[in-house]
């Protein structure tokens, strides 16, 4: 493709991409630079794209005002559990829907898919009542169980199913002749080959859990239990107004692992987008 472009076309294309870059890069730039500006400089006019003076104490205040390390850990371990759990559930469910013939398989799959169409705001109240009865409010269980067995996992199941459908049936026939049963075929043949699809499921699930906002504010009430997106809202002054520079410093720290993961796994990330046929 690249070789086909004339120099003029290429310049135009790069120009266009630079313009498109602005709405993506600017907010990140603003977040990072504002986190080290004194609060008075944030709303200075004309806006300072490059900070004139630096205030690094914002970062230490992030940790003073909230149990931020604890909250970081909460987000991290919840996201890790959800990611691993979703990978297990979605790969097995996806494999079953793709490969095992059982009565009404397609109908059941359609019903499961319907779960994707229901916004989480609709189900949050009944879910809250359910977890309240189970004594799980203000614990992390709802944030772990709902994504693994709920709508986010349905999306992952869909991605895995689409992958397993394309896996050549002869590979499984060969494995059966070689002496493998259904579960071993899944574990030894299908799963290792599904690595690209699993990687995209892992990335999307991790991001989804890391960024989850509605569920934590519904289910959690003590600062010790908070996850990061929820903790960000807590950097307020005595009047409830946001402390912008500290909040943006916390936001920067929150976004950091995601940015690092993205840079490292960029290839998988793009492949993941291609796999799902959807935008993130």
């Amino acid at each position, binding site marked *: 493709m690249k070789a086909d472009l004339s120099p003029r076309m290429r310049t135009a294309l790069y120009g266009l991409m630079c313009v498109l870059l602005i709405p993506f890069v600017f907010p990140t730039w603003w977040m990072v630079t504002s986190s080290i500006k004194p609060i008075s400089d944030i709303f200075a006019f004309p806006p300072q794209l490059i900070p004139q003076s630096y205030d690094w104490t914002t970062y230490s205040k992030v940790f003073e005002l909230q149990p931020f390390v604890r909250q970081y850990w909460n987000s991290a371990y919840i996201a890790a559990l959800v990611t691993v759990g979703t990978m297990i559930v979605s790969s097995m469910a996806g494999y079953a829907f793709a490969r095992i013939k059982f009565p009404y398989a397609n109908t059941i799959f359609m019903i499961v898919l319907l779960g994707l169409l229901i916004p989480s705001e609709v189900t949050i109240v009944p879910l809250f009542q359910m977890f309240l009865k189970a004594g799980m409010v203000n614990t992390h269980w709802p944030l772990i169980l709902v994504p693994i067995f709920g709508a986010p996992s349905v999306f992952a199941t869909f991605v895995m199913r689409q992958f397993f459908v394309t896996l*050549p049936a*002869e*590979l499984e*026939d*060969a*494995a*059966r*002749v*070689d*002496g*493998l049963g259904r579960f*071993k075929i899944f574990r030894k*043949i299908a799963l*290792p*080959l599904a690595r690209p699809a699993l990687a995209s499921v892992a990335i999307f699930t991790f991001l989804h859990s890391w960024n989850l906002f509605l569920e934590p504010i519904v289910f959690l009430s003590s600062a010790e239990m908070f996850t990061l997106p929820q903790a960000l809202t807590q950097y307020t002054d005595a009047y409830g107004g946001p402390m912008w520079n500290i909040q943006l410093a916390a936001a920067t720290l929150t976004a950091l692992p995601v940015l690092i993961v993205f840079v490292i796994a960029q290839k998988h990330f793009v492949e993941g987008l291609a796999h799902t046929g959807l935008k993130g």
Partner: protein
Amino acid sequence: MAKVNLSDIRKSYGAVKTIHGVDLDIRDGEFVVLVGPSGCGKSTLLRMIAGLETITDGTLKIGDRKVNDLDPKDRDIAMVFQSYALYPHMTVATNMGFSLEHRGGSKAEITERVNWAAGILGLTNLLDRYPRQLSGGQRQRVAMGRAIVRNPQVFLFDEPLSNLDAKLRVVMRGEIKALHHKLKTTTIYVTHDQVEAMTMADRIVVLNGGRVEQIGAPLDLYDRPVNRFVAGFIGSPSMNFLTGTITQRGFQTSGVVLPLATSTNTIVGQAAVYGIRPEHFRLNDHPGLASVPAEIMLIEPMGSETQVTMRLGDVQVIGVFRERINGAPGDVMHVLPEIGAVHLFSEDGTTRLN
């Protein structure tokens, strides 16, 4: 090694019947080829023997065991697939040793068997490669290696050469045959290519529409096909068929009379199909009573032989001659069908008359 016995084997998917009762006795160490056009049920039959498809009715025995309800792994068979079905994430050595590993073989034993198979198939240098790093022929050999490593009672091949180019196909054909000669394992081989069937088989089973049309040694099928389907399927270019009536003078077809052996006098007056293979026409420079005028339509010199598309009366036929023929489309030459090589079939093609 074992004999394989199929007795009234049937397969249906719901109301749709695909295999209509196949009886077949495969001897210990025999190389049997199942051949037929697409959709004739040959692959289904092979997969039923492998245990990958259930058997609706009938009895399947491998050795003296009835195996109808056994899992593929308990049937002591090995199968080579059309797409080779090598595990992409495993090396050649792991691919070949995979089944032994799952049957609880010791590491030393697996290595020994894999090295033995790799030695036979010339794969010793490739054991650490992945399937994607191999050529088509090499993949094919690995697939065979995976099959022989276990020393099964029966080898099953499902169109193993159809993904290779023509030249490599001929080479691999020879290798499979040589392998069979060396190991003498009972082999069932499915193909749609009648040349493969002719060159490799001890016996050929011709299938059509889920039924066995004929079972026999390759040359028996070639020389004495029992019906028009087998006659047309075996041989390339395929047999010429002319419809007409048996008369005292010979076979009366549109515009010409073709010679017949006197033994057919008993069925004079019967409508029939006259079959003659392309190589059973002779050139006859002295037009006489027995020879037939043929208008040349196309001459295709092959070097060793010449293929001529010509018109006998109103019917277009193909002749293959050892001679080089100088002629042009439109010219008339005289040909003589070999009386002894004529096949007569009933008008509907289902039975042989001579």
